[in-house]
């Protein structure tokens, strides 16, 4: 199976298979019945996963797989002979996109399996619609990951955005849920606008958006290279790239739910839980991290952007963790935790420890998918109740769910030796050792903030676990909770095992681990070599962060705050949370209201836009556009059309006369101007 052409043809198959599944289910799914719908959807996913494995064998063998790429879809040359627009269909798999490929198809497959049971209460049409969207999402996500240019990535980027919108508002008859979908969509559009600015800037700097060509274009150039052509002639490369990468990062903020555009993600929990697991935890929301990693060689040339990425990530990590303290909805807790973990990933890619960011992406995909699916299982048991205050004592009722949830919680908390510990620590230690060329202190600040956020994570995740599973049932429903079907628990176990096993990727570079030390970092090195070369000088390496104390700190922090959570929600300090809430009622409300960020946006952004839009609607749209352009022009044109139709009365003689007169005019013109 290590024939490269097989892998190449498999590349398009990867996208086409889920797409075909979506088409079939979308067109005739309603009539097929649930079993067939599930068969088609899962069949497509299995096939995609197998193709991904075939492709990945090539990647493991050290070969990158490309398909298309040279074929231009279209190419518009600007006045200076360079491409103004250059769009190609090409797919590209290297170690980075290959890894993502496995995560997307693998986790995607598991969640498809889980959903067959989870969504079984839907009617046939809803069931088919759900799997249609889910397959469509996978196709779009694979386009995003496999695309070999920013443009194709953007196609996938918009595609996943659409699917996200459709799935958040899956139960669209509930107005609140439909509204959540809209909120996600609109917030993402704001980010996409930045993405587009980034793409256009890059196109006008380099005349291409293809990753390989971009990498080749910046090779050997420093921050100070002067641009000689295009709209940015006269700028230095660094300055132009700062603009471009900042644009891209705004897109990442939207898609990956970073400050200040994170607000949509918690609301995205309105969708079915498997969707939250697949889209809003494991795959789509990590697209921003992927994009930064993919274009690392551009970001590395823009230190200011790197610093921004790092800081935004760190602030988001702390901020989201703080909000998560006050949440009582199990899915909301997990949502804010996702936002916070995404912040960690951005610290990683922003501080130049790209591999750590990507590694956290992978491990997070496992344990967060596990957590969300566990939450879904709990919700099933609790008859769709999501308030953790109503739960408690589920550990005996739902043993499988409880065990897997515990494993995943320990992983995200950063308890040794689970995978989350190593990936998170790799990020924090990397940040501590990083030296941003423009703002040297950023790494340290990110480390401090990150450590605080890690402590917060340990606390609120443990709180969530204890409130849900420990103690005694607090409601009738919780007393009668039941374990979910094997299709669900089986998937939970696979993910739980994966979140433990993934630790192998992230062992630090210590003597005792031998060649297993930082295996993932070494594996990813070719992908990021160019960026690292820019950051640390040609041929240079990141400083070896083998100091022990950051590990100790991280471990201690996780244990301490986990223990605190145990004490406050299970142990002797059970009175403390209530007392605290009573002691600072204002602050508590503030926290429960998610620091009122939505209200802030409502006041300053939404109201402003609404009022502006009202004016635009009444004045510009109604009078100018609708009155003059939309209705006016067609009216004039239709009038003219009626006038000209007078000549089209079906009368043969008149037709002949028209032709004769026109011919005479033509002859007169050619004779008059041409024959002298």
């Amino acid at each position, binding site marked *: 199976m290590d024939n490269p052409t097989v892998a190449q043809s498999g590349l398009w198959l990867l996208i086409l298979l889920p797409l075909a599944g979506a088409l079939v289910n979308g*067109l005739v799914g309603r009539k097929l019945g649930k079993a067939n719908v599930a068969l088609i959807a899962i069949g497509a996913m299995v096939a995609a996963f197998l193709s991904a494995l075939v492709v990945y064998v090539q990647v493991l063998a050290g070969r990158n797989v490309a398909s298309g790429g040279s*074929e*231009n*879809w*279209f190419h*518009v040359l600007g006045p200076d002979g360079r491409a103004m627009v250059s769009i190609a*269909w090409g797919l590209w798999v290297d170690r980075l996109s290959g890894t993502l490929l496995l995560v997307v198809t693998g986790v995607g497959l598991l969640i498809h399996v889980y959903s067959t049971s989870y969504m079984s209460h839907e009617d046939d049409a809803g069931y088919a619609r759900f799997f249609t969207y889910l397959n469509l999402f996978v196709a779009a996500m694979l386009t995003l990951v496999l695309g070999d240019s920013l443009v194709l990535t953007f196609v996938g980027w918009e595609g996943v955005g659409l699917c996200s919108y459709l799935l958040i508002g899956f139960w669209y008859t509930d107005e609140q849920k439909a509204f959540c979908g809209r909120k996600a969509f609109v917030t993402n559009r704001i980010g996409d606008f930045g993405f587009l600015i980034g793409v256009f800037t890059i196109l006008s700097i380099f005349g291409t958006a293809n990753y390989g060509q971009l990498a080749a274009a910046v090779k050997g150039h420093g921050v100070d290279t002067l641009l000689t052509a295009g709209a940015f002639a006269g700028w230095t490369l660094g300055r132009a790239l700062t603009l471009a990468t900042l644009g891209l990062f705004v897109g990442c903020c939207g898609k990956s739910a970073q400050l200040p555009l994170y607000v949509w993600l918690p609301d995205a929990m309105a969708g079915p839980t498997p969707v939250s697991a697949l889209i809003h935890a494991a795959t789509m929301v990590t697209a921003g991290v992927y994009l930064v990693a993919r274009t690392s060689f551009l970001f590395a040339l823009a230190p200011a952007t790197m610093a921004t990425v790092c800081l935004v990530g760190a602030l988001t990590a702390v901020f989201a963790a703080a909000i998560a303290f006050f949440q009582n909805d199990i899915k909301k807790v997990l949502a804010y935790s996702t936002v916070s973990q995404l912040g960690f990933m951005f610290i990683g890619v922003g501080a130049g420890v790209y591999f750590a960011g990507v590694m956290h992406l992978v491990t997070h995909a496992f344990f967060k998918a596990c957590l969300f699916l566990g939450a879904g299982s709990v919700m099933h048991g609790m008859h769709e109740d999501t308030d953790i205050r109503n739960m408690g004592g589920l550990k005996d009722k739902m043993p499988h769910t409880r065990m897997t949830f515990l494993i995943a919680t320990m992983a995200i908390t950063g308890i040794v030796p689970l995978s989350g510990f190593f990936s998170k620590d790799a990020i924090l230690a990397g940040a501590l050792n990083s030296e941003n060329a423009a703002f040297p202190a950023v790494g340290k600040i990110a480390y401090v903030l990150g450590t605080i956020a890690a402590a917060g994570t340990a606390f609120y995740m443990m709180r969530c676990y204890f409130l849900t599973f420990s103690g005694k049932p607090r409601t009738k429903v919780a007393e009668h909770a039941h374990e979910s079907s094997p299709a669900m628990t089986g998937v939970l176990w696979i993910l739980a095992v994966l979140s433990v096993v993934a630790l192998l990727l992230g062992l630090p570079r210590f003597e005792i681990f031998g060649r297993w030390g930082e295996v993932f970092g070494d594996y990813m090195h070719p992908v990021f070599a160019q960026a690292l070369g820019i950051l640390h000088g040609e041929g240079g390496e990141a400083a070896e962060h083998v100091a022990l104390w950051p590990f100790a700190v991280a471990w201690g922090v996780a244990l301490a705050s986990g223990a605190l959570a145990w004490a406050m929600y299970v142990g002797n300090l059970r009175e403390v949370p209530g007392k605290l809430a009573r002691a600072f009622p204002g602050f508590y409300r503030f926290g429960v209201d998610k620091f009122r960020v939505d209200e802030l946006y409502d006041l300053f952004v939404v109201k402003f836009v609404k009022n502006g839009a009202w004016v635009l609607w009444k004045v510009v749209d109604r009078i100018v556009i609708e009155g003059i352009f939309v209705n006016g022009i*067609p009216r004039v*044109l*239709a009038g*003219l*059309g*009626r006038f*000209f*139709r007078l*000549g*089209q009365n*079906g009368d*043969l003689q*008149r*037709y*002949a006369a*028209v*032709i004769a*007169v*026109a*011919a005479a005019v*033509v*002859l007169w*013109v*050619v*004779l*008059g*101007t*041409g*024959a*002298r």
Partner: protein
Amino acid sequence: MNFPTQDFAALAPVGILSGGALILLLSEVFLASTRRGYQASLTVLFSILAAVAAAGGGSPGVIFNGQATVDAFSTFVTVIVCAGLALSALVGAGWLRARQAERGEFYALALFGASGMALLGSATDLLFAFISIEVMSISTYALAAYIRRGKKPAEAAFKYFILGSFSSALLLYGTALVYGAAGSTLFAEIGRAQGPLLVVGLGLVAVGLSFKVAAVPFHVWTPDVYEGAPTPVTAFMAAGVKTAAFAVLTRLALVAFQATPASAANSFAWVLAALALVSMLFGNWLALTQRSVKRMLAYSSIAHAGYLLVGVVAAAAAGAREAALSSILFYLASYTATVVGAFAVVAVLERRGRSLDEEPADAWDLERFAGLGRKRPGLAFAMAVFMVSLAGVPPTAGFIGKLLVFQAAISAHAYGLAVVGMLTSALGAYYYLRVVVYMYMRPAEDREIGLISPAIQVALALAVVAVIVLGVGPETVSKLARAAAAIGM
């Protein structure tokens, strides 16, 4: 004198087409039975064979002492014509069968017409071109009257015939004048002559060809004929006649653009530019007010003639010639696939009277499309693809075609034409998308689902695939078009 085997071999596609026509003619009298399904298949087979012969036959260059040139350009045109013929034949099979009017003559006439079109693609002599045009036209006149009963087809055919003869007369008169000025009707010779006689002669020839391509103001016949003719025939006319006429117009324009003195060449470019301009404007304007989809498509075909003329005008600038010619060829290919598909949907949906003589006034009304998205999602999707392609929206063939044409116009510094082209395309989107709106956003008025015919479905599927493939991966075809743009002058 040696036997010009090569010359005949180069015309093998034409031989296949006209031989096929004869076979179908005989099949009708010898094998006539109620089952005529094989006739459409045979027609498709012959068109495929002709296309293969054209594509595989190499390029022997000038044949018949310069009267015709078989080159990549003519090959490209022949293949487009064959594709248009095959698709139209499939549409015709379903449409005619539903009316119990399927006869071998229909296919024979179409094949004869196609052979004329294929000849026209390689014509480099005015007389040769004239004869090819007549072969093509007389077949299409007869096809337009194919459904003899009912007033509309007869009226359409009659108008087409009278006005077509009129334009042929102008063309012939122009040819005579050109001969008087140049002493030859070969394109190669015409290029060397000069004088007012030549200019007037070429002007008349241009008028005659403008009639065939349906450029404003020589378009007057188009709406009535397109609407009145049987729908598959309309598809064939829109695809084949336009392609062939543009092929010869392009070759001739290249001659005219090299005419001396330069002012004469310029005046031709100006005339063609003016025709392009008014065709784009009027075609789109008049299409706006149509409620009959078939008539709307007729006006849209006029507008598309305008866009194609933009390409011809762009070929006047030496620097943009290759781009312009390849854009015309690509546009023709994409337009053929799209328009045959669109007429196929019209053919499926058109309302029939209780008898062949009865012609409902609303046979092609927009209302026929209401709710199609629910009633027949596949059909509605196909129509949506065609409409989007005609409007020039990515990722369809129509978009790439327009892009290439306007790009050529810009590199020929014909900015005005390019801008008008883009603006009128935007205008066009209105009436194309109106069909889509009717299909998906209006409730169905009745439960009629139109004709169900496997042949038409095959044609539709092929056309949809072609439109999307040309739109998504145009590189292969546009490479061929670029290769074909190198016309040996």
